[in-house]
């Protein structure tokens, strides 16, 4: 009995310690709860009841297999909040970010959102690496009149417009016309074979389906269509199938870890076909490490390649990210690049225009009439409208520049497509 009692105590101690460290690992948030560790500099919440503060939530995978994306988004949300706070707050009120880990044990995106809404009384919720999570939380957000700004948004939550769902970036299907036109620009031979290889998320599979249809209409032949489950830890079989189909062009949106073996396997087989990756999934580090001149990615925001940039939008992002300890180009362009800064920054601007307090339908209305210009980061302007809750309207295509060993803009100003591709 004694040893069991000691054992139980040790188990509790270990779990408590690990929970504490997990909180540290998630950049100062509690693992599954949002009202925790405070930091005045980072825009982190001390309490939802902090007098006069504007409390915004983040509901995302802050632990688990997708935590790289959740942590990435959170960094940029905090950067935007810190930037606002460093400039006097929003209409004199400090912004506080509270988090709820959708991937924590016993937690999911809906219960995490309930926690943010009921306990923390947030004005809006960012996050949602998975579009499925955004869609699942949308009814709850509508019933409580809390706007969601989703990193990934399911098309059915955008058309018809849902008052409280806003897309933080493009929907992959919107990148289909740009994918096809760029492949044509690369002079992929007529009657050539194309392959698709995507992760098993809703948005990626929709992209694969739409781009395959468009590619066939453009005259190319369907070689293979591969899906990599989100739970899979290895895509070698799917990659082998792509290589075996001898594609003249590959349209892809795998998780970032699968891009290196995809490219290397194709090149090792003597296939130098262009690989066009949707949703900015290659990432800055991907370009600088893979160094392949026929690897391209489509994204709505520019990479920052000069820390001393004079372009206003890029300089602002650099300054904001510095407050989060992100000071190198690799850190500033981490994971999917600085596109994750744009929607939180735009939300801060909407809150500013709305006055204080601004919640519910007032905030949703303000978001619908927000337009921000961030030169060096966004082509054109980022603006949500009452008829379209997607802010990015133009796309970039990036490739690898061996002269600078960095990604470079290959094409800019490409119009985003419709939600159905």
């Amino acid at each position, binding site marked *: 009995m004694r*040893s*069991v009692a*000691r*054992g*139980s105590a*040790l*188990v509790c101690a*270990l*779990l408590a*310690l*690990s*929970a504490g*460290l*997990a909180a*540290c*690992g998630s950049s100062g948030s509690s693992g599954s709860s949002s009202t925790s560790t405070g930091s005045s500099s980072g825009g982190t919440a001390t309490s939802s009841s902090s007098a006069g503060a504007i409390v915004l939530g983040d509901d995302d995978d802050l*632990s*688990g*297999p*997708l*935590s*790289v994306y959740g*942590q*990435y988004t959170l960094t940029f949300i905090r950067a935007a909040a810190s930037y606002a706070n460093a400039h006097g707050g929003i209409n004199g009120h400090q912004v506080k970010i509270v988090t709820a880990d959708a991937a924590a044990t016993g937690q999911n995106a809906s219960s995490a959102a309930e926690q943010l809404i009921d306990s923390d009384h947030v004005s809006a919720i960012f996050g949602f690496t998975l579009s499925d999570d955004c869609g699942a939380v949308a009814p709850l957000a509508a019933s409580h009149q809390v706007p969601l700004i989703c990193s990934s948004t399911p098309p059915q939550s955008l058309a018809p417009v849902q008052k409280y769902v806003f897309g933080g970036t493009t929907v992959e299907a919107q990148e289909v016309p740009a994918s096809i036109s760029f492949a044509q620009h690369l002079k992929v031979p007529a009657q050539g074979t194309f392959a698709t290889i995507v992760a*098993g998320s809703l948005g990626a599979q929709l992209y694969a389906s739409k781009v395959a249809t468009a590619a066939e209409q453009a005259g190319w032949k369907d070689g293979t269509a*591969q*899906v*990599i*489950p989100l*739970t*899979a*830890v*290895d*895509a*070698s*079989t*799917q990659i*082998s*199938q792509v290589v*075996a189909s001898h594609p003249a062009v590959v349209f892809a949106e795998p*998780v*970032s*870890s*699968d*891009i*290196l*073996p995809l490219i*290397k*396997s194709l*090149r*090792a*087989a003597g296939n130098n076909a262009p690989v066009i990756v949707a949703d900015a999934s290659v*990432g800055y*580090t*991907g370009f600088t*490490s893979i160094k392949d001149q026929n690897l391209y990615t489509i994204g709505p925001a520019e990479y920052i390649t000069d820390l001393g940039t004079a372009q206003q939008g890029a300089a602002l992002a650099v300054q904001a990210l510095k407050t989060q300890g992100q000071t190198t180009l*690799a850190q500033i362009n*981490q*994971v999917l690049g600085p596109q994750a800064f744009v929607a939180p920054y735009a939300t801060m601007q909407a809150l500013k225009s709305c006055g204080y307090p601004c919640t519910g339908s007032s905030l949703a209305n303000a978001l619908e009439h927000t337009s921000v210009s961030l030169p060096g980061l966004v082509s054109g302007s980022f603006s949500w409208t009452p008829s379209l809750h997607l802010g990015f309207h133009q796309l970039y295509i990036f490739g690898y520049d061996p002269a600078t060993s960095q990604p470079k803009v290959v094409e800019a100003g490409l119009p985003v497509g419709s939600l159905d591709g």
Partner: protein
Amino acid sequence: MSNDVATIVINGLVNGCIYALIGVGFVVIFRATGVVSFAQGAFMVLGAEIFASLVNDGLSTGPAAILAAGGAFIFGGLVYWLAFSRLTGAEAFITSVATVGLGILVEAVVLLIWGPAIIVIPQLFSYQVHHLVGQLGFSNIDLFAMAVTVAVFAVVLFGLHRTPVGLRMRAVANNPRLAVFTGVNVLVTSTLAWAIAGLTAALAGIVYLVGTQPDPGSIYALGLAAFPAILLGGFDSIPGTLVGGIIIGLVQATVAVYVGGAWQDVVAYGVLLAVLLLRPQGMFGSPQVARL
């Protein structure tokens, strides 16, 4: 050999080897201490991050792998000696749950040190495929994965069955109290088992890292992905882990080729459930294995 069959054989074998490499640590700990360790994924992350740091600092592959695996060996032993040895006598369920906390703790510390970004290393091995028969061929990365797996299994099996240390580990696994009476130091033996498990997990992390650009979270998840293979082979059987890993790898590759990649994990966990229902001890395991 058709291209599809070659794809299945190659990827099934390679992935099966990675599953087996992950699984061998689970089995070593289970045999020696009766604990199902859910912390193996975290040890994989630790090994991969140390290896990446060393390689990126200019150390060559071999020394970097030895240092990373050696570090995980020491860390694994310390974890048991300092913490889990105090749970001796506790129910296996409690100790196994504690390994969940250990895994989260180790991963959190790793994230604090190295961050959550993808782990990038220089290309160490070529992806060039060496064809054996028809379409059947292996890249250097494939060969590296299989060679490490074979070496690890050979050393572990030899150590367990042909050395005094192995004899003591088997004695502890069979009956810890009786082993004590015969002069076996259970603390040292169990510490060694945890150290070996740390080493093999680190090697699994390194092998996985060499062929991809994973983030720490996906390596951690890989630690749990080996469970269907371990259960199929038998939770206390080291050769069974290898056989189970290869079977699961081949089944997943077959499903990915003929049915679709979206089904490969469904089938793997379907196998896991079927094994639990029909033959809980697995193909080569002992029937008395406790189930959690």
